[in-house]
């Protein structure tokens, strides 16, 4: 009996030894040369492995930066959005390079089709997936561009920076957002955009992506951009362009003057983190549901909508004629 135990121990031990030796040599033989800088870079990266840089994870990004630094002597087209300028600077230091500072970005949800603004016309039943629902139907409120509210963006976020607001049915981005862009990719309707955070987090954007004609858009949602062009006209910095009955504000050009916010007949344009302006008599001030620390929103009266609609149609005709 003892004999058996002894022999099996011996055999096992020998086996282990042999495989260890083989493994050692294999490892030696196949060891590729790796730039030690890769490890250094990886050490300064946030290690979130979110893919926001466009590479499958932090290690691959470290490899790419190292390669680029060696070959191109520049890190300009690379960015770890999570780490931001600080981390990019550290990486640049490792390689003895310098970087351009970039303005910090944040994810912005460009839809304000809350339950109140875009009331449900049908009820959806099925899996909670925007990507599935997008293929199935236009949306409970009837807007085929609007948020489906099933939270694919929330699922995609690795930083807990975006949550669904049960009251509005829309996602809300908070301060934890690193602008990694995962939600932008996840949203089947391209509603989320990465925009400049702006000085003191102040920013202005059009909270709508509806490309329908004004009359149609307003039918489904009373805060839809109807493409009336008022904002474009009032903007002194050429920051606003309108295409497909939809306004877009270029954040590089926008100087945050807030003029467009005031002229928009449907309150599609949002200002975030501004001081509330003095309430004007005909517009009641009400905080908007959609953002962190938010600015003013205005209640729209039904007359306003009607007049807005009329405007649209006229201006559309204007546009199509020239």
């Amino acid at each position, binding site marked *: 009996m003892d004999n058996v135990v002894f022999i099996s121990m011996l055999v096992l031990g020998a086996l282990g030894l042999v495989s260890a030796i083989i493994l050692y040599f294999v490892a030696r033989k196949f060891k590729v040369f790796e730039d030690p800088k890769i490890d250094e870079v990886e050490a300064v990266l946030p290690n979130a492995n979110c893919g926001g840089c466009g590479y499958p994870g932090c290690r691959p990004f470290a490899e790419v930066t190292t390669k680029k630094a060696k070959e191109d002597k520049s890190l300009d087209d690379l960015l770890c959005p999570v780490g931001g300028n600080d981390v990019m600077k550290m990486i640049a230091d490792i390689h003895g390079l310098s970087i351009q500072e970039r303005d910090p970005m944040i994810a912005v949800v460009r839809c304000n089709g809350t339950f109140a603004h875009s009331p*449900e*016309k*049908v009820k*959806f*039943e099925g899996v909670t997936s925007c990507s599935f629902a997008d293929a199935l139907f236009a949306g*409970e409120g009837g807007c085929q561009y609007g948020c489906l509210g099933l939270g694919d963006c929330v699922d995609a976020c690795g930083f807990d920076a975006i949550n669904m607001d049960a009251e509005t049915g829309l996602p809300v981005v908070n301060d934890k957002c690193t602008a990694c862009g995962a939600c932008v990719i996840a949203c089947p309707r391209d509603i989320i955009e990465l925009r400049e955070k702006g000085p003191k987090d102040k920013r202005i954007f059009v909270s709508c992506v509806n490309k329908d004609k004004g009359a149609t858009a307003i039918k489904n949602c009373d805060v839809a951009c109807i493409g009336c062009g008022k904002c474009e006209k009032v903007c002194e910095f050429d920051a606003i362009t309108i295409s497909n009955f939809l306004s877009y504000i270029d954040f590089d050009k926008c100087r945050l003057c807030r003029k467009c916010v005031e002229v928009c007949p449907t309150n599609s344009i949002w200002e975030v983190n501004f001081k509330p302006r003095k309430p004007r008599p005909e517009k009641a001030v009400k905080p908007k549901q959609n953002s962190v620390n938010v600015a003013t929103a205005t209640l729209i009266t039904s007359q306003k909508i009607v007049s807005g609609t009329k405007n649209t149609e006229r201006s559309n005709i204007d546009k199509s004629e020239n």
Partner: protein
Amino acid sequence: MLTISGSPHLHGDNSTKKIMYGVVTAMLPAMVVAIWYFGLGALEIIVLSVGFSLFFEWLIQKYLIKGPLTITDGSAMVTGILLAFNVPSNLPWWMIIIGALVAIGIGKMSFGGLGKNIFNPALVSRVFLLVSFPVAMTSWPKPSPITKTLVDTITGPTPLGFVKEGLGAGKTLAELSQHLPGYGQQLMGQMGGSLGEVSALALIIGGIYMLWKKIITWEIPVSVLVTVFVFSGILWQIDPLHYTNPVFNLLTGGIMLGAIFMATDMVTSPMTRGGQLLFGFGIGLITMLIRVWGAYPEGVSFAILLMNSVVPLINKGFKPKRFGTVKMAA
């Protein structure tokens, strides 16, 4: 308001609840037999087992998981009855409560509840009880029609145990068989054993009912029973003096209960026909190995648990035949 959802817009009327209560119905004959032979003790065990299984499920769902309550879906009831079927009728009442706790708490809920458990909860509990209270779990009251049982506390071994002991003591089967119940009695269930396992007839009736209702498919029970039959048949052919005959092997012990009600548990059995046949074969084989050469006279529970543990593997290996994957004969 209109509803929008993906197709299909029709759903069959089958439901988890229907299946579970179907199983309960199928167990009724065996339950009646159990009460007939083992009297009120059996009834008490069944009631306690079911009651506490439901109670523990409710307790855990309500206070530990804080999820939705699903005690009405019938699955805890099935587990409760199966557990009762797997113990002797004179088991002390507190043991069955422990059994219910183990079955529901460890066997089912610790995996995440219905559908996620790897092992049959009732069997997990049975094996737990067997290991913890070997004496109580193996003293079987002698069955007798209901009138006398109130005072009857004579215990004796199961036929399988009796044979195993006898053979171990060097007796031959010829001597032993005089003391064994006849086939008729075996079929009806007039012999020692766990509550629900004694009457092969009642179990088969339940099995046929479940087949008819399409709750189970034939693959698992048939493959288990055929394997047992063939395996013991071969041994019996070789040496009829020391190996019991195949019919005896089928009719005694827990093989019928195991094959029809426990191996077929949907959650813990393979998904495809091939996998199910292999699963059944494995159970039959392991059962017989334990019966013939193992330390215990009976091995169905162990066999099923063992095979349960390889189900994920079987599921990986046995895929359904996909449409359009076979080369056409030109």
